[in-house]
């Protein structure tokens, strides 16, 4: 059945009988119009009812083929009716029908599994690549913070307590000795599967995830808090490194951190980059309105943030399980190197096709 055929008046099963030849009566163009097209509308309505109730897969192949044709015919009917008809019920019906058909015809096509696979395979790395300048800025902010934190704390350890809040310090501080750090922190005994699972499950509510999410969301506040939060994270990292540097534990501490830190700090940086994308597109909307600009790029930013939360989850597994299982520094560095190379290949795609 061709498009033309649908526009032609055609007697269909169930259509009202042709008009009686009336001499005294009045013929309205809009009534005639309705009489000839109504069968097509009813047909479309039936298809949409079925698609809304049982999903588009419930339609027979033949019906699926007719659906877009009937939809276009309904749209053209609506345009004609707006020009020639004053029947309110008819106009409202056609508009409603077109709208419902529009949502069926232009609805999302993929299932969730396809969507997830697509997200992981192409969308997330592509979004990160598109935000590489923002990522660079986030890295710089954190690196500057780390350098300052290190420089301050390495000379005067009182800075450590100032920079790192007590719950995060977890008993570590200027009064810690080399032996206590080694025993309670870096090579602490494996606490058992239960605690490890607890840490893993707790990832969502851990400090770092919270920081990551705040970093992203503060992009909506023109990005200044994002930069400050990133720099502050750097300050704390710098302070921790300095504390261990003064006790000649730098290498062991870096191993202890890097095994999950590569992933976790990477995730925080990505959240920061996503926040900066939001800020960038809001401050400099180019030729769009601010709201439109945000909508155009906000999806990308949200994709990065979503991917970052998945990275936090991976980091929590590395932290809760692998760090305790691998109780030596070279092993930890090896895992850290594997994750770093893995993330690089995943995001930068040095091999293979780029999208």
């Amino acid at each position, binding site marked *: 059945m061709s498009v033309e055929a649908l526009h032609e008046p055609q007697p269909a099963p169930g259509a009202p009988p042709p008009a009686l030849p009336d001499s005294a009566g009045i013929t309205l163009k809009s009534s005639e119009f309705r009489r000839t097209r109504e069968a097509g509308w009813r047909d479309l309505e039936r298809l949409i009812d079925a698609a809304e109730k049982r999903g588009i897969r419930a339609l027979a192949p033949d019906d699926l083929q007719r659906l877009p044709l009937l939809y276009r015919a309904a749209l053209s009917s609506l345009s004609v009716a707006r020009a020639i008809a004053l029947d309110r019920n008819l106009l409202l019906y056609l508009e409603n029908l077109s709208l419902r058909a529009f949502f069926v015809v232009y609805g999302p096509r993929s299932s969730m599994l396809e969507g997830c696979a697509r997200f992981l395979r192409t969308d997330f790395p592509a979004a990160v690549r598109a935000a590489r300048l923002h990522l660079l800025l986030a890295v710089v902010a954190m690196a500057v913070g780390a350098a300052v934190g290190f420089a301050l704390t390495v000379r005067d350890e009182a800075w450590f307590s100032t920079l790192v809040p007590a719950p995060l310090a977890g008993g570590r501080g200027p009064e810690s000795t080399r032996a206590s750090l080694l025993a309670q922190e870096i090579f602490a005994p494996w606490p058992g599967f239960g605690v490890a699972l607890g840490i893993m499950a707790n990832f969502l509510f851990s400090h770092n995830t*919270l920081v990551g999410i705040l970093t992203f969301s503060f992009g909506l506040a023109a990005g200044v808090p994002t930069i400050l939060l990133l720099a502050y994270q750097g300050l704390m990292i710098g302070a921790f490194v300095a504390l261990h540097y003064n006790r000649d534990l730098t290498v062991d501490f870096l191993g202890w951190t890097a095994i999950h830190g590569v992933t976790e700090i990477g995730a925080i940086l990505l959240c920061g980059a996503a926040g900066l994308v939001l800020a960038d597109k809001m401050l400099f909307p180019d030729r769009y309105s601010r709201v439109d600009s945000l909508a155009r790029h906000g999806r990308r930013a949200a994709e990065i943030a979503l991917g970052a939360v998945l990275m936090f989850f991976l980091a929590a597994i590395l932290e809760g399980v692998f760090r305790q299982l691998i109780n030596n520094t070279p092993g930890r560095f090896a895992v850290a190197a594997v994750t770093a190379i893995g993330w690089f290949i995943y995001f930068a795609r040095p091999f293979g096709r780029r999208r």
Partner: protein
Amino acid sequence: MSSVDAATRVLRGRARATREIVTPEGVTLSVELAQHGERATAFMIDLFFWFCGSLLLFLTFMVLVVRGWVSIFAVSILLFISFIIRNFYFIHFELAWRGMTPGKRIVGIRVIDRHGGPLLPSAIVARNFTREIEMFIPLGILLSASGAGPIPWERLMLAIWLLSFVALIFVNRDRMRAGDLIAGTIVIALPRQRLLDDLVERQASFVFTDRQLRAYGAFELQVLEDLLRRPDGPGVPLILGEVCGKICRKIDWREPVAEADRLRFLRDFYTAQRAFLEREQLFGRKRADKHDTAGDGRQ
């Protein structure tokens, strides 16, 4: 569409806020924004389903896998399971049901692209994931009263955070929450409209002159249409009589209309009036209502 809108405003009392989208075919369609109450109701229904699902899975998990240990790990695992379920729930249904979750479907609202483009999976992911940021994760942290939680000023900030996101829906014109803003979507109500019988009478027993038909415009015609479509009720004959009298006075209809003929008279008048106005409209003389001089043809 202005006459339809005007008639709707009178007939339905307070009309809903509408926005226009343009389909890829270039036709403008007007959509009705969902009201705050509808969205809240839909969200509550979804939360209820989510809560039941999470609780069920959590109980199974606790009974089957880790009989025994409770305390902080139980809470963490519950939060974790609920996180997974609610994201799967919202994203899955909005993808599979084209912008509707069970709650939205019950209430009769759905998510659409703000400009009428296709609703992309990335938009659905973005708007639902932002829900995590604007609501669930801050709420989770606020409610998980574990000792190792964040320090108080962070909690205060989170509370302000939550409130400002709730306020956002009320201060913007399109009732978008942060997720809608980022994903470029709006939430609309889509009540179903049925096609009723055509009111046009083929055999006219009353005949009107063009001069008489010029008394009214499209707006009055559509209000009359609504009256004629009203199902029979106790008050309807009374209104019909009143309207009939008013029209007769307005158009100088001298002969009295018998009570049994009133409906017939009104339907004939509707038919003649519609035929007249539609013909005038075809000639480019649209007449919106009785105060409109554009269709007079005398200027």
